[in-house]
């Protein structure tokens, strides 16, 4: 592969303190280097914006849940048919894009790393098979822990040591990257058709609480020294008044000692859905200012927006009871999918409408979170694809963040009285390019502990996005121009290879799958395996031997080794 020099662009590399300066970026052998050899290919980026490749830390792109979405929504695919191209496979787009199209479209927006945010461990092979068919981007998947039998059992027994070992083992068995928790305890109760309400609700068969689950998993997470914090979908999602639960949950994580070199102990996902005030869907209002206030006053929390887009989309979460509630509210088709011993999921199509008061409030909340939290390193841009809307709407969200005019233009189409239930109309803040880069790559990479991603310093992966937009001349009123530029990168470079040029995919290499390998001392592992073997035999329908994902499912892997909790 030829070396590349990106010359003359305005570079935004927040992790290295570069804020729009003209810096040449040298790429060699898949890495950013100080200096390339003489015969490097030169990319003229003058008058353009240069950023590290985008890093999405929460999206649903692979595995049974999104595939159920694809399966149940042929009517959605018809809106967005993608023919095969010279270098690309055909497929479908919109809210549940096929795997190939997912890879292409992220790359076309200058994104080079995407996290699949919910992997049911029993379906891990499925996730990895889909990731193999998701070209270009690097990826990782987060196994679900919050309702796993072994988690609940060790929490019940107060056996933190075993829980630590189990988390470590499960990450290896599923080739997972981070600890995902969805409605802790609630999904377990849903297996009897019920939910858990609030942090101190009862997880029925275990007589424990979500508070205990979050605490124990956060402890395990930090003790094991995992690169990312716990990745938490809070209890009571979608229930007006839930912002209190969310803040209480953040409070829980405050008591946890972070691993060395990190201040944070919790990442709250798609916070928009968990930042609702009011008592019901009729009087729902924004709880975002409360959450922003908490986050501004504390350093142990990060969160992502879960921004809502006014469009027809497909909601899908590991939160079975919530999806059931959504079915009851909408009457739309509903798939529920429970996974023995460990997880569940639900899928319901949903259209966010401008004339729906609740949707209007939700739209405002996402942006309030991003704009009221002062430190961009704490709040990241997502739509919780496809829950708040498809990821292909990211440029629109960027426009809302960077342009008050863009927000105002949307607000004009919304009910003013309803909008007053949020504070959005009174917010004047506009993200800078630097803040945008933090929100979409530098911050997310840092939160994930992906040291080679999200920046352009020497040693970083050669993942670069070049957008055809001159940031020095751009004004927020020109937000449509920004949308266009960020929807269709002038260049996307992945691992030192040009994969997108002028918005078109020109090469489709397979990216790596990242996972975390925690060292477990053999005597601890032996002890754990005895436990697992016994319970697998009694309760699972697959044997323990057939459970872990084989190397065949990770043709290109990047292993992140940690030493773990043991001396």
């Amino acid at each position, binding site marked *: 592969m030829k070396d590349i020099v990106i010359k003359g662009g305005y570079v935004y590399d927040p992790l290295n303190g570069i804020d729009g300066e003209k810096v040449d970026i040298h790429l060699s052998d898949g890495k950013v280097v100080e200096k390339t050899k003489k015969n490097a290919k030169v990319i003229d980026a003058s008058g353009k914006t240069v950023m590290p490749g985008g890093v999405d830390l929460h999206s649903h792109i692979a595995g049974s849940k999104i595939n159920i979405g694809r399966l*149940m929504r042929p009517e959605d695919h018809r809106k967005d048919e993608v023919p095969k191209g010279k270098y690309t496979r055909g497929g479908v787009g919109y809210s549940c894009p096929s795997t190939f199209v997912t890879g292409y479209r992220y790359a076309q927006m200058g994104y080079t790393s995407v996290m699949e945010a919910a992997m049911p461990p029993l379906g891990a092979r499925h996730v990895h098979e889909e990731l193999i068919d998701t070209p270009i981007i690097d990826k990782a998947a987060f196994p679900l822990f919050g309702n796993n039998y072994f988690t609940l059992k060790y929490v019940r027994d107060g056996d933190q040591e075993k829980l630590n070992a189990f988390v470590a083992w499960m990450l290896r068995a599923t080739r997972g990257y981070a600890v995902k928790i969805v409605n802790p305890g609630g999904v377990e109760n849903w297996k009897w058709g019920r939910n858990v309400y609030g942090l101190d609700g009862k997880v029925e068969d275990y007589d424990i609480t979500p508070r205990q689950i979050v605490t124990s998993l956060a402890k395990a997470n930090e003790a094991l020294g995992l690169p990312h914090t716990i990745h938490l979908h809070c209890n009571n999602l979608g229930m007006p008044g839930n912002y209190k639960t969310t803040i209480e949950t953040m409070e829980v994580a405050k008591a946890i000692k972070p691993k060395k070199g990190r201040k944070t102990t919790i990442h709250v996902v798609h916070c928009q859905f968990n930042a609702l005030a009011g008592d019901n869907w009729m009087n729902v209002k924004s709880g975002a200012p409360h959450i922003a206030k908490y986050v501004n006053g504390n350093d142990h929390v990060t969160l992502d927006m879960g921004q809502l887009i006014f469009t027809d989309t497909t909601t899908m979460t590991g939160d079975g009871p919530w999806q059931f509630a959504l079915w009851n509210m909408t009457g739309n088709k509903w798939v*529920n999918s429970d*996974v023995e011993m460990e997880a569940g999921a639900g899928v319901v199509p949903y259209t966010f409408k401008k004339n729906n008061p609740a949707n209007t409030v939700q739209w405002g909340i996402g942006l309030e979170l991003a704009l009221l939290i002062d430190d961009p390193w704490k709040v990241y841009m997502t739509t919780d694809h496809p829950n708040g809307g498809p990821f292909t709407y990211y440029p629109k969200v960027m426009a809302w963040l960077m342009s008050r005019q863009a927000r105002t233009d949307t607000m004009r189409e919304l009910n003013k009285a309803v909008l007053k239930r949020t504070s959005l109309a009174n917010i004047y803040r506009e993200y800078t390019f630097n803040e945008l880069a933090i929100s979409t790559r530098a911050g997310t990479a840092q939160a994930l502990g992906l040291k080679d991603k999200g920046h352009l310093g020497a040693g970083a992966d050669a993942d670069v996005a070049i957008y055809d937009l001159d940031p020095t001349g751009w004004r927020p009123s020109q937000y449509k121009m920004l949308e266009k530029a960020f929807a269709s990168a002038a260049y996307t470079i992945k691992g030192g290879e040009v994969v997108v040029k002028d918005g078109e995919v020109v090469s489709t290499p397979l990216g790596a799958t990242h996972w975390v390998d925690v060292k477990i001392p053999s005597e601890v592992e032996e002890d754990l395996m005895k436990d697992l073997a016994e319970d697998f035999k009694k309760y699972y329908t697959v044997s323990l031997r057939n459970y872990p994902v084989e190397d065949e499912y990770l043709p290109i892997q990047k292993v992140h080794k940690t030493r773990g909790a043991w001396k």
Partner: protein
Amino acid sequence: MEHVDVVCPFCGCLCDDLEITVEEGHITGIKNACAVSRSKFLNHGSHRITSAAVDGKKASMKKAVKEAVEILSNARRPLIYGLSSTECGAISKAVEIGEVTGGIVDNTASVCHGPTILALQQVGESKATLGEARNRADMVVFWGSNPTAAHLRHIVRYSVMPKGMYSTEGRKGRKVIVVDVRQTGTTRLADKFVKIKPNSDFELLQALRATVRGDELPVDEVSGVPMKEIKELAEEMKNCKFGIVFFGLGLTQSEGRHMNIDAAVGLVSELNRHTKFVLTPMRGHYNVAGANTVATWQTGYPYAIDFSKGYPRYNPGEFTAVDLLASGEVDAAMIIASDPAATFPADAARHLAKIPTITLEQKTTPTTMLSKVVLPVATAGVEAEGTAYRMDGVPLRLSKLVEPPKGIHSDEKVLDMILEGLKEVAQ
């Protein structure tokens, strides 16, 4: 050599506890398997096609692949069909061949649980993996399904007999209800056999749902079942702790087809307003679920996929194999791991003999007997490894226990040879 925890590549149960002895490259012993599985492992070597053939004459693999490439690249409307008894790597290649040739890719779901998918697309589905049945179910309903003939270990391993976390009593703790038009092995072990008139499942499902909703229906009986019994059944369903419906081709292949499933899904969804209830289709071939799964993530659609316009389109009834063959619309066919000549109505099967048909198969079948090109392949799960998806969507790894006969490759490899050939021709 002893292999333990081997995954069985026969039916949708994908049992993964087989113990298999291999001596000098041959399978000599097998434990834990059902009769069919035993037959598959012990007979995988018999009646094998040993050489590729073109027009009924032995041919080299190279020549046969070349012929296949020629047929497919010259076809205007090629059909690629089958894929339920092979592993996912092969399915993936088949989909790509469909795209490269601008053909149609269909899998055997179209004549088994295709209607289930159509219903899911209309109304959804409340489902769970089989372990949920094992651990929790205190009510098990078999509706138009007969595992004693089609899924031989289902009852013992997953649904009726096993003890689980909350089903500590096994069989005793479960109420088993069978709804069918005739007595079967499954009805014999049921606590309650609801015998219904043929082609009237839909009415009974609807009546049950309305009754669960609390409506008094103005009729004395439905589908041959007295209203009193229907009310009782509805009450029992509402009052169980965890109910599961295992439904089969009795619903998908009789009048009503996908609407029968639509009604079953509706009933089960409704029951979730009272208790926990799920349903699971009894998928037949061991990886038919995988065929749907792979096709869906690659194209958005599970079966009946037309690539003629360069992007995938979906329409069962229009792009499904039986319809395409019966109408004589397709002008070439490639069959992988399936035997449509033995499974389709004769009218549809007949067309396969009229057009150049390419078949990848281990053993002689009616389809190979009328094919222009026959390509022998290894048996996935015995001679080749890969992934398969269980009836409930759980992916498992198939093993390679023995070498395939000399010169014989996996489905995936042979399809890849054809794909490469097609790509060369296209350039």
